């Protein structure tokens, strides 16, 4: 079976790399999560204790984990709809026959996606500066008081949401744009003949046709937003008062600053379990909805 051999030869390098550098560490992480690996164990492996589900139980009782989970959920609940709405809006604009300079705007809308997150987080940290930031200055122009974006525990996460939406909306825009462009014009014609205005056309032609694409976009965006890390790391160091500590940020600080590896890997797997469950739920809901 020369073809079989060739297939393996072509696929093997990537599979080997993935196996050794991705799947093996994941399995090791799972094992680690059942131990209390920490600084003492780092010094001497004899100090390692097997604790079974101990880390997971501790997690559930640690206020900080609950806070991190809450923060992450807050980010997802506010950020995902906002992000998709912005992307949809952008896609509709680009797709519209009335719009001019479309290629230029498509590029402009996508540009934030390719930026290095560290660099733009530094920019936005200063845009959010209470005294000298552009955002508070713009708010002041329309009569709204200065907001202590990165210093007030209530506003820090919304600030991060705004930043994340800015950075990512271009990506989903492209996907939604493709979906929009795939909708046949005849459907719109038919609706127009029936007397439907733009809003009705949107509700009865666009949205139903976009439903499958929207599902993909929402699953991907949700999964991505649950993995919030870089923004809190650069902009707020998880503060103020840990209001922007996300699950992965917690994992990072526990893992690499304090080397509580057992605890940190348990955090990571809880996140994975959540993502997995949510994806399944979304898929099942969509199937039931489309069956109706």
């Amino acid at each position: 079976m020369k073809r079989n051999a060739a297939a393996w030869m072509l696929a093997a390098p990537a599979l080997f790399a993935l196996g050794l550098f991705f799947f093996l560490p994941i399995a090791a992480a799972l094992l680690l999560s059942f131990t209390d690996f920490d600084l003492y164990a780092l010094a001497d492996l004899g100090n390692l204790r097997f604790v079974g589900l101990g880390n997971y139980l501790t997690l559930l009782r640690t206020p900080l984990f609950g806070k991190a989970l809450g923060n992450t959920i807050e980010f997802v609940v506010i950020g995902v709809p906002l992000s998709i709405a912005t992307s949809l809006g952008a896609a509709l604009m680009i797709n519209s026959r009335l719009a001019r300079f479309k290629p230029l705007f498509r590029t402009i809308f996508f540009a934030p996606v390719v930026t290095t997150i560290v660099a733009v987080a530094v920019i936005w940290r200063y845009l959010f500066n209470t005294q000298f930031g552009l955002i508070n200055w713009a708010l002041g122009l329309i009569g709204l008081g200065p907001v202590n974006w990165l210093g007030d525990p209530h506003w820090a996460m919304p600030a991060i949401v705004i930043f994340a939406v800015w950075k990512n909306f271009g990506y989903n825009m492209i996907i939604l744009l493709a979906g929009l462009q795939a909708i046949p014009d005849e459907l719109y014609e038919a609706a127009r003949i029936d007397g439907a205005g733009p809003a009705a056309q949107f509700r009865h032609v666009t949205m139903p046709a976009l439903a499958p694409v929207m599902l993909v976009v929402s699953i991907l965006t949700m999964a991505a937003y649950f993995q919030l890390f870089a923004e809190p790391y650069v902009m707020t160091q998880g503060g103020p008062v840990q209001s922007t500590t996300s699950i992965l940020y917690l994992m990072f600080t526990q893992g690499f600053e304090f080397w509580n590896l057992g605890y940190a890997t348990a955090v990571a797997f809880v996140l994975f379990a959540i993502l997995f469950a949510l994806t399944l739920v979304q898929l099942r809901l969509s199937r039931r909805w489309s069956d109706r």
Partner: protein
Amino acid sequence: MKRQKILVNASMWLLGLFAVAPLLWMVSVSLMQPGEAAHFPPPLLPAHPTLQNYVILFATTDMARFFLNSLILATLASVISTSFNVMAGYAFAKLEFRGRDALFRWLLAALVIPAQVAMIPLFLLCKELGLVNSYAGVLVPSIATVFGIFLVRQYALAIPDELLEAARIDGAGEWRIFRSIALPALTPILVTLATFAFLASWSDFLWPLIILNDTDMQTLPVALANLAREHVQDIELMMAGAVITLAPVLLLFLMVQRYYLSGLLAGSIKG
């Protein structure tokens, strides 16, 4: 109709402004005198533009070195990742082998796993392999990616089977078919993949932060993050650092955007 047209275009300009204003402001501040930006109302344009911040950056930090590190690593990651991924993606798309589809489904499931989960044990593994504090160590997670394989496979599915069959009948070996038929057909997605890998490697900062210990091996994002945490007050300097970090990726994007965007499209929609 006219009102609608104005509405649509005005919204587009507004959103465009939202998208690009931070980047324009970054450039503007990087040309300001030190301390100029910390005023109210915040200045939009420098009063006396100066390149001083860039000079200070290159003179007092190892910016040039960091830039070079990032460039070398991103290029290597791009080349290696694209090669590994294209071979595997083609194999998954067009070559039959036992367990192919089941294996691919498992790989897809892995997309849900956050990469950070693997980082800690991967670090320990790299330590055993002696890869800590080396370029090789930095490249290790980028060698092959599930997303890359997925993209290539999606695109490769479109290669007509008849073409490949005809070549086989003519007696060509699989490797030859891959090189002379598949690769040319996959060129657009290769560009996308290479660009994607370059951008991902250039912007990656958590892994390089962990695996590299020597300051002079640092990449730009790590250096910039350090700079930002140390110099909370020197905003003009940091903006200059941000410009240096962003300029290459934005330029690259502008150059290949047509291929890049259509490639992403193709991969995300089909299947």
